[in-house]
């Protein structure tokens, strides 16, 4: 069994976000640089303090345009970098890279950043933008495939076939995210959404429709990570990484060959979170449960143990707060309070990490939850992006 020597040893000491938009006209460099500068300043640090730079712009990234880490170093003229790299796009993966670099002593403080940039393939408006004409897609599969995004529509067909889930249940995930996004100034979609509007939205990859898929957006997040000891000398209450995990199922990128929905990457992640965390579901004050596709959220509820396998429908009915038009697990725990991937923007979990940091250190503004100590992040889908983390408030400061 895996040890967890790194538990509570690495802190997030700074965050910076540009917020998200569906019709931005800035470069990815501009967005990433703004987030980076604001995260470094938020942590009370300067350029000479940054020893590591990690992006999520590596191979297979959703964000296939620069800046990678070397370009970020050049843009910010960081003089003391001893570790750098371009990691996987989904946020816990580069977060783990950063944690490991710090824990090993390769560097003391890491700038980690993630950005999203709409491509001509992901957005009609982006296709009309002359400044995006040079972008080449990483994803030029023929239509006859069940890979990447299509894999989720395909496995949604199976999930709906095997379980008594209907479109209303998927719709509640979408409405929850939109309701929460309304009070988040960083969110791309803040207009109200009703269940009827969800049900009337057009289908894209049937059985999933427009409002079942996360939003292609422009925007960037940056984080400053350092040792917990160092973070206690910095301006904000440190947020500690209690545990972080990835899970890769053995069929990995052969999504169509997955043996069954009974075992995939989410199961591996949950096993890791249980083995490596001293906190349980009862301790969770705020939950970030991936909604890149609506039915992924339902699956996470089952895999996390909030309900039995196949029971996500009744669980959602029970957690639904009709007056507030959002989910409150056990009548208490909000889910995706920043608006999720569906309404804040499809950030591969980066928006979850930033919002969790704000909630735990008490800087979430109008959306602040009362005195949270523990945030659960369940990120990604079933195959090559299943991840999880438990972030906690540092009470030793």
């Amino acid at each position, binding site marked *: 069994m895996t040890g967890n020597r790194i538990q509570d040893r690495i802190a997030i000491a700074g965050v910076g976000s540009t917020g998200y938009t569906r019709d931005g006209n800035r470069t990815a460099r501009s967005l990433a640089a703004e987030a980076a500068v604001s995260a470094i300043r938020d942590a009370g640090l300067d350029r000479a303090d940054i020893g590591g730079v990690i992006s999520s712009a590596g191979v297979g990234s959703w964000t296939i345009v620069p800046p990678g880490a070397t370009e970020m170093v050049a843009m910010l003229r960081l003089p003391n970098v001893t570790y750098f790299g371009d990691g996987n796009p989904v946020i816990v993966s580069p977060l783990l890279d950063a944690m490991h670099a710090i824990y090993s002593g390769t560097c003391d403080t890491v700038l980690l950043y993630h950005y999203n940039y709409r491509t001509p393939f992901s957005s009609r408006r982006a296709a009309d933008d002359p400044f995006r004409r040079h972008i080449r897609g990483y994803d030029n*599969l023929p*239509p006859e495939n*069940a890979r990447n995004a299509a894999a989720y529509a*395909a496995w949604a067909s199976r999930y709906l*076939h095997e379980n008594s889930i209907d479109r209303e249940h998927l719709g509640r995930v979408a409405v929850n995210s939109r309701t929460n996004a309304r009070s988040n100034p960083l969110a791309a979609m803040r207009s109200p959404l009703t269940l009827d509007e969800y049900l009337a939205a057009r289908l*894209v990859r049937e059985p999933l429709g427009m409002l079942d898929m996360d939003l292609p957006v422009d925007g960037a997040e940056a984080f400053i990570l350092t040792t917990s000891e160092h973070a206690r000398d910095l301006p904000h209450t440190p947020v500690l990484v209690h545990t972080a995990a990835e899970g890769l199922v053995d069929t990995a990128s*052969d999504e*169509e*060959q997955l043996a069954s929905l009974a075992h995939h990457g989410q199961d591996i992640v949950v096993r890791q979170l249980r083995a490596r965390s001293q906190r349980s579901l009862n301790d969770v004050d705020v939950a970030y449960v991936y909604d890149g596709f609506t039915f992924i959220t339902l699956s996470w509820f089952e895999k996390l143990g909030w309900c039995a396998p196949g029971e996500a429908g009744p669980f959602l009915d029970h957690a639904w707060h009709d007056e507030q038009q959002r989910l409150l697990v056990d009548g208490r725990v909000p889910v995706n309070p920043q608006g999720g991937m569906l309404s804040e923007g499809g950030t591969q979990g980066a928006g979850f990490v930033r919002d969790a940091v704000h909630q735990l250190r008490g800087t979430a503004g109008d959306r602040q939850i009362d005195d949270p100590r523990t945030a659960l992040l369940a990120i990604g889908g079933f195959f090559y992006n299943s991840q999880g983390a438990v972030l906690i408030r540092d009470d030793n400061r």
Partner: protein
Amino acid sequence: MTTPIPVWERYPAAPIDQDNVALYKGWLRHELTLPRCGNCGKWHAPSYPLCPFCWSFDLIPTPLSGRGTVHLSILLHQGPSAKGVSYPYPVVTVELAEQAGLRFTSTAVEGCGRLAIGTPVELAWLDRDGAPFPAFRPRDGATQ
């Protein structure tokens, strides 16, 4: 005598390499061909250079019946433009009859709509730009 046209010119858009070329050569003969392991006897998909189950490199491209049941099923209402493709466009992942868990994804013949999961299917062959292209259709007597 004319030289036969190489398979990569019959399927110019396909990502053909040494590991999967037998699949596309099979299509030209109206066969679904996947690598079968000479050591443990299992098929696998997509076509890899070794058997993922026993790690043998002794692979024998072997035709399958093309029969199976629909395991995953979507109907694309929009998507990339491609020759012979019009939307809405069905895409099915079929669990092949020869081996549990062995699956192949392609389209379904026109007029099927979104095929129900569990539908027994067989292969039909479409013409795409002068080359055969596999598509599934419900087997005789199968109700959707």
